[in-house]
């Protein structure tokens, strides 16, 4: 089952990358990042099962905590961007574009 889990993880990660690259709504892009983190978590769990040690699961806990922190800060940034631009469409947010 390890190889299947790694396969699912790779597919989910790819879907997340596709979402980040193709969508324009900042919130959806953010959710795609969460999906990618989840895919990596699946890899961690599968490989921790392969090695027969729970250290991978500990790392998954860390990843989840950091994801929660990232969601809080990122959504706060999105709210503040929305106040400024009145939209979360990334086409409008090109202040740093060269």
């Amino acid at each position, binding site marked *: *089952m390890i190889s*299947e*889990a790694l*396969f*699912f993880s790779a*597919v*989910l990660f790819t*879907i*997340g990358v*596709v*979402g980040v690259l*193709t*969508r324009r*709504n900042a*919130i*959806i892009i*953010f*959710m*795609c990042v*969460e*999906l990618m983190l*989840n895919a990596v*978590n*699946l890899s961690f*769990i*599968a490989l*921790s*099962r392969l090695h*027969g*040690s*729970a*250290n991978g*699961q*500990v790392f*998954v*806990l*860390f990843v*989840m*905590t*950091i*994801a*929660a*922190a*990232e*969601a*809080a*800060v990122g*959504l*706060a*940034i*999105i*709210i*503040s961007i*929305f*106040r*400024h631009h009145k939209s*979360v469409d990334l086409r409008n947010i090109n202040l740093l574009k060269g």
Partner: protein
Amino acid sequence: MNTLVYTFHFYLFGLIAIASALAFVTRKSPVAAALWLVNTMFCLSALFVMLDAQFIGAVQVLVYAGAIMVVFLFVVMLLNLGQASDVTDIRGLGGRLTAGLVGLAMLAELFALSRLHFPRLVGAMSDHANIVNPVSAPLFQEYLLPFEVTSVVLLVAVVGAVVLAKRGDNVS
């Protein structure tokens, strides 16, 4: 037989997760996308449980599907982004029939599984009597410093979120 059941469900949850992720990426409405992502996370939680990480599976449901996605939906609601036309779309007869069939199939499966002697996972890593101990022992011994640093990170994130989202006086 038991291995077959295990393999079947592993593939089932994996494929549902991938299908939900595809639906999530292709939805226009942020609310629908978020709900599909919740579905993906539930399936991933099932996969975690099947991979002998029961505690992580429970935490996945609590933290990801419970907390993080609620924050996302809250922000969608706060910014008024879930267009009403997209949110309230009720699919046609085909969609409802499919939903009913899937629900019935899952119920039937649940009953069948509750009668079946559920397989003991092949080559189980942890003692099933105690599923938290294998995770918590390294967390509080080997990785104690990262654990403490994580709490500081969370504190910083909370303070940062409040500072960033606060309506300042000099908002342009």
